[in-house]
C-alpha cells in the first residue's frame, strides 16, 4: 500500500514551484544583489538611472547672468551677493522642463515680494552664537507694516545709502 502520508507535501511543493515560476515573470531581470551586498544592495538596478533622470529645476545664479546682467552685477556688489536669484524668483525650471528659457513662450517667473520673504533673514533673532544675530533686522509691526519691503529697498541693492 503506497504511503499517502506524503501527499500534502507534494501539494505544498507544487505550490512552491508555481510561486518560483511566477517569480520569473514578475521580478525584473536586473533585480539582484549589487555592489553593497545583500543587506544594503538588494535592488532593481535600473532605478539608479530613474533617479538620475529627474528634471533639474534650479539652475543657479550663474545661469541667469547672461540675460539679466545688470541685476546680476548690481546684486553681486551688494550685501545680498550670496542670495540666489531663484530664492526670490523661484526655480527656472519645473518638472516639465526649463520653461523660463527653453520654451518659446518664455514665461516670467513669479517673484515673491511678500514681507514674509524678507523677514526670513531680517526678522531679528537675538541668538548670540548664531550667524542670525549678525543680520540687521526690523520689527515688522512697527517698520512700515502695510507695504512691501521692495517699495523702498531694491533687493538687488537693498542699502538705501547707495551701492557699496
Amino acid at each position, binding site marked *: 500500500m503506497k504511503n*499517502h*502520508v506524503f*501527499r*500534502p507535501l507534494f501539494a*505544498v511543493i507544487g505550490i512552491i514551484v508555481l510561486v518560483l515560476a511566477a517569480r520569473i515573470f514578475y521580478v525584473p531581470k536586473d533585480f539582484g544583489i549589487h555592489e553593497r551586498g*545583500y543587506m544594503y544592495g538588494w535592488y532593481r538596478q535600473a532605478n539608479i538611472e530613474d533617479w538620475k533622470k529627474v528634471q533639474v529645476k534650479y539652475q543657479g545664479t550663474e545661469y541667469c547672468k547672461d540675460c539679466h546682467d545688470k541685476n546680476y552685477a548690481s546684486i553681486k556688489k551688494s550685501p545680498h551677493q550670496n542670495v540666489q536669484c531663484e530664492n526670490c524668483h523661484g526655480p527656472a525650471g519645473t518638472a516639465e522642463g526649463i520653461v523660463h528659457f527653453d520654451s518659446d513662450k518664455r514665461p516670467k517667473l513669479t517673484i515673491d515680494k511678500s514681507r514674509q520673504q524678507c523677514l526670513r533673514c531680517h526678522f531679528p533673532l537675538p541668538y548670540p552664537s548664531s550667524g542670525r544675530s549678525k543680520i540687521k533686522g526690523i520689527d515688522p509691526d512697527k517698520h512700515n507694516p502695510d507695504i512691501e519691503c521692495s517699495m523702498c529697498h531694491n533687493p538687488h541693492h537693498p542699502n538705501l545709502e547707495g551701492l557699496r
Partner: protein
Amino acid sequence: MVHGEIWTIKELFVTPNEYIYWSVQIVMYPFMTGLVAGAFVLSSLYHVFGIKELKDIARFALVFSFALLFVAPMPIMLHLQFPFRGINVMMTSHFTSAIAAFGIVFFTYGAIVASELWFLYRKHFVVKANALRDVQDKTMLQWMEYLMYTGLTLGAFDISEESLHRDEKAIKVLAGIGIPVACFLHGYAGFIFGSVKANALWMTPLMPVIFIMSAIVSGIALCMITYIVVMEYRKFMIKRARKRWEVSLEEVKGAELHVVTMTAKYLVFFLIFAISLELLDLIFRGYTAVKSWDMLRTIIYERDFYDIFIMQYGIGNLIPLILFLSPGLTIRRAVLGVLLVLFGVFMMRWNVVIGGQAFSLTFAGFMHYHLPIIPHDWETFKEGLGGALTIFIMPFVLFYFIAKVFPVFSTKESH
C-alpha cells in the same frame, strides 16, 4: 493631509516627518497572528502530549487556527499603501528584514496547519465523497460538493485501520513540528518591534519572547471562549430541535467544566510567564536608566499610565488571574476571565505599537494617537475603528464557513 497626520496630535518638539504611521491595523496584526499561534499550540497540547481532556477543544483549536490564518494577513493588506504589491515580500524577499520572514514563515505554518487538518479529516472526506458518488441524480450543489470532497481527499481513499494509524502518526509529527514554527511565527512578529533600535520603547531582546507568551495566552483564551460559546449554543439548539442533529441527547453536554478548568491552568501558566517578562523589562529599564529613560518614564508612568496599568495589567491581567486562581471555577467566571485576558492582550499590543510612537525621536516632544471612530474616507475607515472591527469579526465569519467542510461537532469520523 499626509498619511498619519489626521490621527496624530503633536506636542512640544517633534520633527516634521514624525507621525503615527503604524496605527490600529498594526496593533491588530500581532493580535491576530498571536491568536493563530496560540490556537495551534493549544491543539498540539492534545496531539503531541496526549492530554486527553483537551481532545474536544483541540479539534476546535485547529480549525479555528486555520480560519485565523486567512485573517492574519488582512490587517497588513489594509495598512499597506500598495496592498497589491504585498506579493513583493515573497517575490524579492529581503531576509535582513523581519517582515520578509512573513512570507516564508506564514506559508510554512499554513502548510503545516492545512496538512494536519487534512490528516485529521481525511476519513470524513472519503466517507463524504463515497456517499456523494453513490447519489444517482446529483443536484448542482451535490456535484460541487462531490468534486470538492473528492479533491480534498487528494486521491487517498484508503481508510483501513493501518491507513488511519498512519494519519495519526502524521498528525503527531506535524503538531510537534508546528509548535516551534508557531513560536517562530509570533516570535518574529515580536522581533519586528524588538529589533528597531531607533525606537527606545521597542528595542529589547525580550520583545520576541513577550510576544510569544502573550500570543499563546490569547490563543488559549480565544479557543476557550469559542468552545464555551459553541458548545452552549449547540446544546441550546438541540433542545429546540432534537431531530436535525446526528448526536443523541446523552452526548450533548454543553461546555464541559473539566475541559475548561484544564485549559485554564495552561492559560494561567503562560499568563504569569508573560507578565513576569514584561515586569522584568520595566524594572530593568528603570534600574539602568539610559538616555531614553526620562522620556519613557513620562510615557509609561504618566501619559499612558491608564492604558498600561489600569487597562492592561489591572483589568487585563490581574483580575483574570484572581478569577482563575480563586477556588471553584465556574464556566461563567471562566468566560469573564477569558474575555478580560483577550482584552489585556489587545491592550498589550496597543501599548507597544501606539506607546512606542507616543514620543518623538527628540525625546522632547509627544504624539497623541486618536483612533478614527467615524470614518469620512477610505483611509479613516481602514485604519480606524471600522477596519479594526472588521478584522476582529472576520475569523468568526470564516470559521462558520470552514466548519461546514471541517465539522467540529461529530466525533465519529475524525480522530
